């Protein structure tokens, strides 16, 4: 908390510093700053706005755009064209300068549905090149290389906007305000369910989908937000320079923007400001190198990327946290810990006695091999249903079908009494009330333990984007509630002491616990656990047994994929045994144990010591 306040104070100070800058001359009684310095500061601020937008995209959503300059330029040209050709007022043209790039951003986001990483980068690069090419060649409209000159001076409320003394530098301050707004928006988005969802989607797409996050949606959002910022910057630039042509928005600019993000530290709050300032000042200084300046530029970047790959802010704050935070011993609580308020989690069970899940003739093929073959099974609400079978028997595949990750080649799944269409996405199922854990835990390792759980609560929020950014009361109410419940869940699995630890640093057993807590944050009706006991000590396994039973007794339906025979014995109401993707046995624990086919599948002929299993 103290840290946060200090942060805001620093920002305030910074704002004051910039605000006071134009009047510095009166203070020191010199002709300073001149319009040259003012212009530099203004351009730096405009860059910062664009970079903040890009930072949301790269730092939070983990998507690399090498075409950002094009969106920046789009904003600039929209503003320029509207005021030049259509005679729009400054305000009007700015609105479009933001809106149109934002839409373009949404379009650009579409590829992320299918392509990632390098491929996405390529698409953005290509987009940037196309943009430039069009601007250059469509002379009649964009003025080609001679660009759009003599834009009318912008006016707002009858005030002419310039960065001159006679207008009290009003345009300068307008840009400053925009910058502050951008900083605020970045803060508000980052520390909200949207920011969390973006980071989640970046760190583990599967887990996010399983937690009710519409990954494509959130990515589209990230793209159009950052494009919006780019557009804003572009519009401001156009009205500052009163001249635009494509040469300001080339691939190199895109690279430069991205570098500013990385340099500052992608994903950090202050990163964009620092990165922009450093790189921008650097380019001014490098002028001294004459013909070698570009070389110096490249060298500088290479060095920075080596010394601090996490960026200035990232690396430094990383160091500081390492020095300041002494690793205090954290006590692991007992679990399950049915504290007050836990009833919320199991508040909406499926109607008792109903068949929560009916799978009919589920078959799943990958190319040649058949992972699941004509499986029928029925899971009654409030029961613990175990799926067992040797490695590669198709247990996990079946689980993935149920949770919507794989589309069954054949067969029909009925959930909570409703038939699922082939198009139901995992996140929709999650919102229906299906939660799951993953065989090899899929946590959001760079987010804190609490944040992990909060991502699980994503779909419970009512407050929309505007409310979130404006921080309206409802947002605060819901955020508070979510945190409270998150902590309660952590307490439930005995991790409340670890709330602020990065999930990736947890020991293996604790990661399993966290994953369960995160899944419960969905308040699911049906909980799918994929080998939850793998790697747990016997003590932990017994606790896990208690937890699963407890949930089932409170009306939650649990499907459990497991190896540990004794655990299955202890918790399951019913057991389905798979082998080579087919059901070879289905019934109560006792029935299944007695089944010779099961023993064969599990231990083969060579298994002399297999016998005791029956005794178990």
């Amino acid at each position, binding site marked *: 908390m103290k840290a946060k306040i200090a942060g805001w104070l620093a920002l305030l100070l910074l704002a004051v510093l910039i605000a006071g800058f134009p009047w510095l001359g009166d203070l020191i009684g010199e002709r300073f700053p001149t319009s040259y310095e003012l212009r530099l500061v203004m351009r730096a601020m405009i860059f910062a706005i664009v970079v903040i937008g890009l930072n949301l995209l*790269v730092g939070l959503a*983990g998507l*690399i755009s090498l075409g950002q300059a094009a969106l920046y330029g789009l904003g600039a040209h929209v503003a320029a064209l509207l005021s030049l050709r259509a005679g729009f007022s400054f305000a009007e043209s700015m609105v479009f300068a933001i809106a149109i790039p934002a839409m373009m951003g949404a379009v650009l986001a*579409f*590829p992320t549905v*299918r*392509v990632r*990483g*390098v*491929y996405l*980068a*390529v*698409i953005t*690069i*290509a*987009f940037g*090149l*196309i943009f430039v*090419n*069009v601007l*250059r*060649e469509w002379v009649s409209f964009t003025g080609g290389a001679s660009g759009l000159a003599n834009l009318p001076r912008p006016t707002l409320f009858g005030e002419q906007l310039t960065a001159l003394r006679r207008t009290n530098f009003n345009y300068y301050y307008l840009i400053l305000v925009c910058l502050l707004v951008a900083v605020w928006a970045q803060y508000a988005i980052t520390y909200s369910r949207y920011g969390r969802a973006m980071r989640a989607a970046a760190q583990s797409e*599967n887990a996010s989908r399983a937690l009710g996050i519409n990954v494509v949606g959130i990515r589209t959002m990230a793209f159009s937000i950052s494009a919006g910022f780019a557009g804003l910057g572009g519009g401001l630039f156009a009205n500052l320079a009163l001249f635009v042509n494509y040469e300001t928005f080339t*691939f190199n600019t895109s*690279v430069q923007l*991205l*570098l500013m993000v*990385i340099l500052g530290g*992608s994903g950090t709050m202050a990163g964009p400001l620092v990165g922009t300032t450093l790189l921008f000042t650097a380019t001014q200084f490098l002028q001294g190198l004459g*013909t*070698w*300046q*570009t*070389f110096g*530029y*490249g*060298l500088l*970047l*290479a060095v920075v*990327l*080596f010394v601090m*790959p996490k960026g200035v802010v990232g690396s430094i704050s990383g160091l500081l946290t390492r020095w300041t935070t002494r690793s205090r011993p954290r006590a692991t609580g007992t679990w399950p810990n049915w504290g007050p308020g836990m009833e919320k989690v199991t508040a909406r069970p499926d109607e008792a006695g109903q068949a929560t899940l009916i799978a009919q003739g589920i078959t799943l093929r*990958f*190319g040649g091999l058949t992972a699941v073959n004509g499986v029928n099974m029925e899971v009654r609400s409030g029961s613990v249903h175990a799926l067992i079978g040797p490695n590669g028997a198709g247990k*996990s595949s079946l689980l*993935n079908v149920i949770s919507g*990750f*794989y589309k069954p080649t054949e067969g029909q799944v009925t959930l909570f009494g409703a038939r699922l269409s082939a198009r139901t996405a995992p996140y929709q199922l999650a919102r229906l009330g299906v939660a799951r854990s*993953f065989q090899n835990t899929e946590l959001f390792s760079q987010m804190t333990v609490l944040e992990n759980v909060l991502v699980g609560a994503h779909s419970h929020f009512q407050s929309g984007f505007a409310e979130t950014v404006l921080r309206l009361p409802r947002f605060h109410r819901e955020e508070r509630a979510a945190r409270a419940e998150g902590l309660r869940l952590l307490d439930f699995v005995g991790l409340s002491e670890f709330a602020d630890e990065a999930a990736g640093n947890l020991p293996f057993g604790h990661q399993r616990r966290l994953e369960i807590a995160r899944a419960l944050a969905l308040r699911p009706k049906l909980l799918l656990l994929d080998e939850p006991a793998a790697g747990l000590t016997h003590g932990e396994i017994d606790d896990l047994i208690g937890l699963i039973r407890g949930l089932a007794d409170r009306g939650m339906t649990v499907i459990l994929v497991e190896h540990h025979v004794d655990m299955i014995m202890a918790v399951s109401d019913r057991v389905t045994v798979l082998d080579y993707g087919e059901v070879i046995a289905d019934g109560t624990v006792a029935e299944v144990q007695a089944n010779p086919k099961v023993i064969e599948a599990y231990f083969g002929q060579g298994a002399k010591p297999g016998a005791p299993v029956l005794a178990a």
Partner: protein
Amino acid sequence: MIALGFYVMWSAAKAVNFTFGDIFMLGGVLTVVLREMGLPLPMAAAGAILIAVLSGAVIERVFVRPFNRETNAIGWMLTTIAVGTMIESATTATYGALGRAMPTPLMEAPVRIGGAGIYWQELLLPVVLLAMTVALEGFYRRTVLGRAMRAVAYNRVAAGLVGIDADRITMLAFALAGGIGALAGFLVAPIVQASASMGVVVGLKGFLVAIIAGISNAPGVVITGLVYGVLEKFIEAYLSSAARDAIGFTLMIFILLLFPQGLFGRREVQKV
């Protein structure tokens, strides 16, 4: 041919190297420089290629390997861009911004076929390219080293477990790529004069082509490269030389959307 170079690098390091366009440039420029220092053409070319090979290796060792380990691709992407900038600007500063001619016997007189005509040099290009492709394929399928490269590309760990030094192989791959790039540069230089800026566009396009071809398939890359080249010519001839890039790149985007793994790339099943 450039795309081919990218393919080689990718196949070994799963890393894209934006300095490649500049290595290509070096190929041409160095040849010219060495010749001005009085070396005969073959010697100069050999020298240039040799240097390029070395620089390829160095770049891998110094600028790519440290980042290759990391999960985020941005690291080396930007570093290589930075290095590229350095190489190019250094050349501009020392060699001068303007292009210089690189006279070769093959450029003196064009052969004329009907109305159009073409230089021997240009005929040489596809021939060499074809040779390179065949050679590479042979190299990858027949020689142990080639197989090793493919092994590393497929699974570094497993490669290590059969006794392959993955890092060394990767470096070799970059060196090889450097050589190919330089060779290309040397071959193209006579047609488009050798200049510091000759690499930029080519590098970018080569990269894009390699990607849409589905970077992990040599013949695919070559074919796509040729097709794209021809396509550009057609656009110039029948649509507009102005809109060429716009149209070309738009096509690329659509191709990527239709074939996320590239035209010739295999698409792997996502494991949950």
